[in-house]
């Protein structure tokens, strides 16, 4: 009997010792010297953001010798579904790329509010307008869920050489000038404006919310955008319908490629100079400057009856820590690292615009975008798809491309958006952001 008691005592002691050992080594939360593999998921594909993230990881590994950063590229088309499923089973990453705005709010159940987790001094280095879009009620004092990676512009790119050869002497600033430029470019043998699902391959068709953002800039002041969220300003309003109607004429008048819904190589068209314009974002700036050098420049998509006076400048994405992160200490260290000048340098080197105060961009085309705000004093707008309900965004992503293609009428598409909005519970379409 005594022998059995002794054996049991040894076994219990061994189990306790093993448990202590595994919690110290495996959890990583207490120790900062034990080897740790930090996992980061992203949906960047081959964008410049992917380069920036990889280089951030390498730099972080040099500082924290015991940490290996495993950067995992997930498919963009169902990235958030994967992230959510992983959160349910708690098998996801320590850190994950997260879109800001209402995307963050939608997924905040498995994201850590970083207030008090990341030192306030680190957050103080970040552009405050970037932080607010990652916080509850879009108020940074509520604490951000995301450390922004960069400031992004939805923006137009144009080929200066194509413009010159076609006799387009000034950059169009409204619909009529855009159609006039299209006519000249077409006559000169260029494809004026190319559309396709290249760039951000988020679905089978092109992502329409870059254009939709500018159509709504052309239609409404910034203060009215909340009303699109609340439903006070119906999607079906005549001014919206008129904007979409004019937009669809880009296709019917031959200003765009005919296969807008099925084209995949639109970036190739622009990089080779075959297409003169493209609506895209800062994540492809470096690609374009690499291919076209000084021929490429930025312009504000002029989807307005009057000269366009707003530009989409928004910190659209960053990294979040998951609530179930296996290595929270190292994950928070990585987030803190993202706020440093060294990180800003890495992000800039990848051709992006760091979201850190006092830093600049060395890419001249990115600088042109910043100048729209700092010199031309254009109103800064958020990305429309980040400040309207994800369900509405999803419906828009399905129906809006067909409006440009001419296979769905503007009124029908807008009715779909309105109907989707109407299906949402009232707490998802209130007079303030959640």
């Amino acid at each position: 009997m005594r022998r059995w008691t002794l054996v049991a005592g040894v076994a219990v002691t061994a189990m306790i010792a093993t448990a202590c050992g595994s919690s110290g080594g495996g959890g990583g939360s207490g120790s900062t010297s034990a080897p740790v593999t930090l996992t980061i998921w992203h949906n960047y594909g081959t964008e410049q953001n992917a380069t920036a993230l990889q280089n951030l990881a390498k730099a972080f590994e040099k500082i924290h010798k015991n940490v290996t950063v495993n950067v995992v590229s997930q498919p963009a088309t169902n990235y958030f579904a994967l992230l959510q499923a992983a959160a349910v089973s708690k098998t996801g990453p320590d850190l994950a790329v997260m879109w800001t705005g209402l995307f963050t709010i939608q997924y905040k159940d498995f994201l850590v509010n970083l207030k008090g987790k990341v030192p306030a001094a680190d957050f103080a280095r970040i552009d405050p307008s970037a932080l607010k879009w990652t916080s509850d009620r879009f108020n940074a004092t509520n604490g951000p869920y995301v450390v922004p990676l960069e400031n992004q512009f939805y923006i137009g790119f144009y080929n200066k050489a194509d413009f010159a050869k076609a006799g387009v002497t000034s950059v169009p600033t409204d619909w009529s000038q855009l159609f006039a430029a299209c006519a000249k470019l077409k006559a000169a043998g260029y494809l004026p404006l190319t559309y396709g699902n290249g760039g951000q391959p988020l679905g089978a068709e092109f992502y329409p919310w870059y254009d939709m953002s500018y159509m709504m800039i052309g239609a409404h002041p910034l203060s009215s955008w909340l009303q699109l969220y609340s439903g006070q300003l119906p999607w079906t309003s005549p001014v919206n319908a008129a904007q979409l109607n004019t937009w669809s004429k880009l296709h019917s008048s031959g200003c765009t490629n005919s296969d807008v819904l099925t084209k995949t190589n639109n970036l190739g068209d622009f990089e080779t100079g075959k297409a003169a314009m493209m609506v895209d974002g800062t994540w492809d700036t470096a690609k374009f400057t690499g291919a076209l050098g000084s021929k490429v420049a930025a312009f504000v998509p002029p989807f307005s009856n009057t000269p366009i006076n707003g530009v989409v400048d928004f910190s659209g994405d960053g990294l979040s820590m998951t609530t179930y992160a296996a290595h929270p200490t190292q994950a928070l260290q990585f987030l803190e690292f993202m706020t440093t000048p060294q990180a800003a340098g890495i992000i800039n080197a990848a051709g992006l615009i760091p979201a850190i105060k006092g830093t600049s961009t060395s890419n001249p085309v990115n600088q042109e975008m910043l100048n729209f705000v700092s010199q031309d004093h254009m109103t800064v707008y958020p990305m429309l798809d980040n400040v309207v309900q994800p369900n509405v965004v999803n419906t828009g992503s399905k129906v809006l491309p067909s409006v440009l293609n001419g296979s769905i009428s503007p009124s029908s598409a807008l009715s779909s958006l309105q109907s989707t909005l109407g299906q949402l519970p009232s707490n998802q379409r209130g007079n303030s952001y959640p």
Partner: protein
Amino acid sequence: MSTVTAESQAAAGHLPGRGRTARSRLARRRRRAGILLSLPAVVVVVALLGIPIGQAVYYSMTTWNGLTSTWIGPSAYSTALSDPTFWRVLENNALLLLSIPFAIGIPLGIAWLLHEHVRGWRFFRSVYFLPTAVSWVVIGMVAVQFFALQGLLNKMLSAVGLGSFQTNALAGQRSALVALAITFIWSMLGTNVIIFLTGMATLDPTLIEAARVDGLNRRQIFWRVTLPLLRRFVQFSFVITVISAFSALFSLIFVMTNGGPGFGTTTLEFFVYQAAFALGEFGTGALYGIILFVIMIVVGLVQLRLIRSAEGEGW
């Protein structure tokens, strides 16, 4: 006058006393043994099907996102049923059902030709079976290339002087649905040809021979002898094809159109995926899944009814 013996009464279960008691005890033991033996299977079915279905019904009335849920109640269904997009999606399902006669008729014709041993029938049998051996994802990718603006279909039209009919089939809502239906018909070709070939192989050749002696030509033999005898195989093929049209088109849609343009090729099955895995609304996904489940039950019962009534039986 018959004599009632103890044995016959015992056999009929009428015998009072010890024999009856022993028999009822045996029956009870058998019943108990039967229950015990079937219990594991019942537990497995309840655990793997009953509980998840019950959970799905519950979650369909919540705003479950995988982590948190809020109870809405049955009004979730009335809200969903008032959504015009939902009805648009059901319309797509209904339109796809129009492809069923083609998905059965074409393989039936091909199987008949192969059964008649036309020249090269062995080669063609392999060719027609090919779609069954190819993944639906691959079929979808090939179909995208085939129907593309610069694809094979338009090149063929151009080559035969029908260039004016060239179209970007996947860019129009209705044309994309037609392209999807054609691809579906092709996908089902191999399976259905094999079903019908197997059926024809089971036919008694003397019946065909007798029909021939009676003066029927090939076509008459097919319509009057072969087809009626193949009824059970046609029914089986019908059931398989209808179920596939409702619940197996996901990969084709995902690869070819992603449900677009607009909601032009979104079926209820794809809608479930969209709600649950694109929007992260698992509760809404469960709701549409339950509706799909109910529709499939109704379709199954209707099929059963048709089959039974064709056989002269009721439900």
